[in-house]
């Protein structure tokens, strides 16, 4: 057993071997894995073949690895993802995972401020080069001469590139860091972009949501810790263990959808009976996330359960993807009445012109006219 491993630290804190294995069991759940992840870790395969394989795998990792260094950058954000994470109460899975990482820099959580804090960050980047995970919260504004969102007089684009250069992986948390989020919504004054638009030479893992589900975020980090590699990702670089299914697929109101029972307003009988919220603008059918299974507040509830339609916050462009309370089958754009009337008027005028030309043609085709020709 190497000194400085997570197990050592836990043991120093008075955690017994039995308690440690229990923790490993809980943490194994945090991975959200149902099968072997596609990472090249032979030990992982061997371990998984045994009963309690995943637990042993976690225990193995915790006994051999030090805490995972994390540098946390915030750009155009609301700190909501941080809030969601830190508002979790003891003892939670989230907190357990947080105990296995080491946050080296975090604006919101840091006691230090100003030049001192920036110096700490630069030190961490150098010290843990190639080992730390860079977590990004908030969208980046690389354009416009980087005049938006500056920290210590430096633009967000530069700050990101600098921190990403030495990172072993980058985790973008929340819709802003992944897809641009609210800052990117029309009219997008800052030219906001997500991490994956700028960082192309490092593994980028997107954990979208507004905010990201804490368990999903920590599960992703923990995966990096245990396997030393990102989990399987979908086409939007989202971890498959948490983003393989739509909200709709796992929704507790799904049977009402199938039966065609819908709430028509927030205070009608259908709403009280818990009918499907499709007509109230639910974006569940096209939204991939774990809200319906992991839920929020330690599994207490999630928006649809509480009676509010899904906003689709883990999908790109969700701010502009139709009104929150507009049914998904409604068109995103519809011609303004004046434009539609204009098209109609153009049609009418052209049609009238064609008819006039045809009338003239009819006259020319008159039998007596033909004789003249």
């Amino acid at each position, binding site marked *: 057993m190497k000194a400085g491993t997570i197990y050592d630290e836990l043991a120093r804190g008075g955690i017994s071997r039995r308690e440690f294995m229990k923790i490993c069991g809980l943490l194994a759940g945090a991975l959200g894995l149902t099968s072997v992840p596609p990472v090249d870790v032979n030990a992982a395969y061997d371990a998984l073949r045994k009963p309690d394989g995943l637990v042993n795998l976690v225990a193995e990792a915790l006994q051999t690895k030090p805490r995972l260094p994390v540098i946390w950058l915030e750009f155009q954000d609301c700190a909501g993802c941080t809030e969601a994470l830190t508002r979790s109460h003891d003892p939670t899975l989230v907190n357990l995972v947080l105990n296995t990482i080491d946050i080296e820099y975090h604006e919101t959580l840091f006691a230090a401020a100003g030049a001192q804090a920036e110096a700490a960050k630069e030190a961490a980047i150098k010290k843990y080069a190639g080992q730390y995970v860079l977590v990004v919260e908030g969208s980046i504004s690389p354009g416009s001469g980087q005049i938006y969102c500056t920290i210590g007089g430096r633009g967000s684009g530069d700050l990101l590139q600098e921190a990403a250069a030495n990172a072993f992986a980058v985790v973008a948390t929340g819709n802003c860091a992944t897809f641009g989020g609210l800052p990117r919504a029309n009219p997008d004054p800052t030219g906001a972009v997500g991490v994956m638009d700028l960082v192309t030479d490092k593994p980028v893992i997107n954990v979208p949501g507004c905010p990201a589900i804490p368990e999903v975020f920590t599960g992703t980090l923990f995966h990096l810790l245990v396997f030393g590699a990102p989990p399987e990702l979908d*086409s*939007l670089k989202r971890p498959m263990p948490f983003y393989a299914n*739509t909200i*709709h*697929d796992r929704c507790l109101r799904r049977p009402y959808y*199938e*039966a*065609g029972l*819908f709430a028509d307003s927030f205070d009608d009988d259908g709403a009280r009976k818990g009918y499907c919220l*499709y*007509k109230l603008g639910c974006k569940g*059918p*096209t939204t991939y996330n774990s809200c319906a299974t992991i839920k929020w507040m330690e599994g207490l509830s999630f928006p649809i359960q509480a009676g509010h339609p899904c906003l689709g916050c883990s*999908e*790109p*462009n969700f701010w*502009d*993807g*139709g009104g929150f309370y*507009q*049914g*998904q*089958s*409604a*068109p*995103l*754009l*519809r*011609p303004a009445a004046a*434009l*539609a009337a204009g*098209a*109609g*008027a*153009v*049609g*009418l*005028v*052209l*049609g*009238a012109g*064609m*008819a*006039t030309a*045809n*009338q003239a043609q*009819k006259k020319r085709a008159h039998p007596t006219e033909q004789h003249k020709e």
Partner: protein
Amino acid sequence: MNWLAILDFARGPFFEVALLVFIGGLAYRLMRILLLGWHFDRIKPAGSKLGGALISYLRGILIWPFIPWVRNTFSKNPVIYIAGGLFHLGLFAVIFLDAAHILAWQSLLGFGWPSLVTPIVDWLAAIAIVAMILLFINRLVNPVLKLISGPAEWLNLLFVFIPMLSGYIMAHHLFFAYEVNFSIHMLAVDILLIWIPLSRISHFMFYFFARAIHGADFGKRAVIP
């Protein structure tokens, strides 16, 4: 390119353009006919032209498609006759009474109306799809239809069939991810909207002309159309 972006395009700018083409195109075709010159009918009528036209509409809508033996003519292939009727019934039920489509109407018109129960719409949609397949087969084998079918007729079938089928697949979450089915459905609808003013699918507009002419002509002669 991810499917959600395609979906946003199909529900957004493409739909808007398609709708404008649809409105402008139909207005053009309507005007071209309306102003082509109409002769004033100077024949002394024996019956009511208006009455004839009304009966003609009612017969056309209510009786005609579902009771083939009314005209005692379709003993040879009643299935095709009924298929045409059921296709239109299913189509109208799906377009105007399906909950999801009413949401679309609501956003376009500003008002909605109660929907039909999903399982009924669902069955009607399935029937309409089967009816379309029958009509397609009929067009393939019937000698008259073979003679009068050009590329446009086949495209008509195709452009109506894809939205119907993709809509059904989407409603049942079959084969592909929902947003993929949704995208295909919306793209097909947009293409259909543009195709309608270019093709004979616009018969829903000229139906009223032809039916009125037919009814008035028969009503004028005091014959029930």
